[in-house]
């Protein structure tokens, strides 16, 4: 018996779809894998949510100055975020959170409950104030600061879910448009992935055929500040201002966590420095300027 399984749920502020193409007679094994894959999203959110005051991340943020032992999930997410910050010279910076809060991204956009901090974040804090101790598995925040693990956490959840589904070969993990495509679709062809036009929600800029690949997009159209609709959520951590030269960046990579973080870094780096940064990391990218000019890394699929 053949059948495909699609499972949709809400997590990490978005709609997640897991789809597995069935080829064999083990629907139970497939169902169990899908349930485990979905459970990873819950696990990651519980550790890494900036908006949940009971999340492990929120509890870490309340203990500035201490070496806090953290779970593997939180440790690896923070360590990776710091590594991307170092590699991008701060263009990507997980401590951008407090600047985001001042621009109005300060509440859980599902419940409207605002965040509160016991110690006000230090406006001069950067990623260099986050110390990651690999041997003790601790994180020390040298100053009061706000960590935003949004890009990293979602990518991590996608990669973990993909790992659960990998034995089935043909599957998709789609978390609100950031996705990993394994194998081929039900017709035996590579998965067809459309890149949304940054200014026209009804149009696709391009359509790619991908297999065993993560596709992650950062766009200025995704979220806007509730205080000022002209301000979107992608800030240049070095200035605190919303990036205004690019409309979207799409990265293709073997894994979603780096694809997600690198798309954000490249967005800040802009059309000039973005492509070479992506190239140096061995991933492919498409950068769309606000004038709708498309810049690609040399290996990005062209028509």
């Amino acid at each position: 018996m053949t059948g495909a399984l699609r499972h949709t749920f809400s997590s990490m502020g978005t709609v997640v779809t897991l789809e597995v193409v069935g080829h064999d007679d083990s629907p139970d094994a497939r169902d169990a894998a899908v349930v485990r894959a979905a459970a990873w999203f819950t696990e990651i959110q519980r550790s890494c949510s900036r908006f949940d005051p009971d999340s492990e991340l929120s509890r870490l943020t309340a203990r500035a100055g201490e070496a806090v032992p953290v779970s593997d999930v939180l440790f690896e997410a923070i360590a990776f975020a710091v590594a991307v910050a170092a590699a991008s010279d701060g263009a990507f910076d997980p401590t951008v959170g407090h600047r985001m809060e001042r621009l109005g991204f300060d509440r859980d956009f599902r419940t409207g409950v605002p965040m509160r901090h016991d110690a006000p974040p230090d406006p001069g804090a950067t990623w260099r104030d986050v110390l990651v101790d690999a041997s003790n598995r601790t994180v020390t925040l040298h100053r009061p600061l706000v960590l935003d693990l949004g890009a990293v956490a979602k990518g991590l959840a996608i990669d973990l879910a993909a790992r659960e589904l990998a034995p089935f070969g043909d599957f998709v993990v789609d978390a609100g448009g950031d996705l990993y495509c394994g194998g081929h679709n039900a017709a035996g062809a590579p998965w067809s992935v459309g890149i949304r036009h940054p200014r026209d929600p009804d149009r696709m800029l391009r359509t790619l055929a991908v297999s065993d690949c993560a596709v992650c997009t950062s766009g200025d159209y995704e979220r806007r500040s509730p205080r000022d609709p002209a301000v979107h959520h992608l800030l240049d951590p070095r200035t605190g201002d919303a990036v205004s030269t690019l409309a979207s960046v799409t990265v293709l990579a073997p894994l979603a966590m780096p694809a997600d973080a690198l798309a954000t870094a490249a967005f800040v780096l802009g059309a000039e420095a973005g492509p070479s940064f992506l190239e140096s990391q061995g991933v492919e990218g498409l950068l769309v300027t606000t004038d709708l000019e498309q810049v690609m890394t040399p290996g990005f699929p062209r028509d």
Partner: protein
Amino acid sequence: MTPAKTNLVALGSAAVLTVYGAGYVRTRAAADRFAGDDGTRHPAEAAVVHLADSSAALTPEIRVDSALPETSHPSLVAPVARPQGSKPTSKDTTPTIPLPASKGSDTSPAAVPITVLSDSSAAPHVVVTTAPAPTASTTLQGTQTASATDSASGGQAQRPLYRDGTYSGWGTSRHGDIQATVQIQDGRIISATITQCLTRYSCSRIAALPPQVVSRQSADVDYVSGATQSANAFYYAVVEALAKAK
């Protein structure tokens, strides 16, 4: 800008493996708990339903669409599984398939195999589904007869009763939000309506669903081909409304 010295894809791969290895046991235990449920849908759990194939095999298009509406309504972890029929493909099934980044032992990321369609126009986005077998026999729209069939069907009439009253809930989708309102009387759902339809597509497409809430005494409504998002949003809205009635 100084060239990046760290290979972030390789680093990411190691991180994913570490987390997977450490957390697998706990996640698996949680999943096994969910998998052993009695078939009743629980909004907060990942219940998965496997349904019969449909006849057509269509290429699903996955859109990289990040423009999801941000609402202030509480989001629901209300998973719904709907399979699609597919033709079997001749593909070697290997027992385990490693993550692409772990292929090979060098630190450079694996080459990304990508082919490009010559025609960049979007393939039609069509979802073909079959309706789930109702767990209660379908009764007439809006009627509340305690028939023998109802009480014999899968224990639906014996499920925990709801508190009487009128309750509303919101469901969200990438096409907009839907508010559903249910009325509970004598512990049973006597009506379900779409009280606000904020989706860009008309809710007439899912007009068949509200009566199913009453006939099935639950949120387990069908999918609607071509209106998957709206059907989902309605489902989530009913789940939220019923949660308030518990």
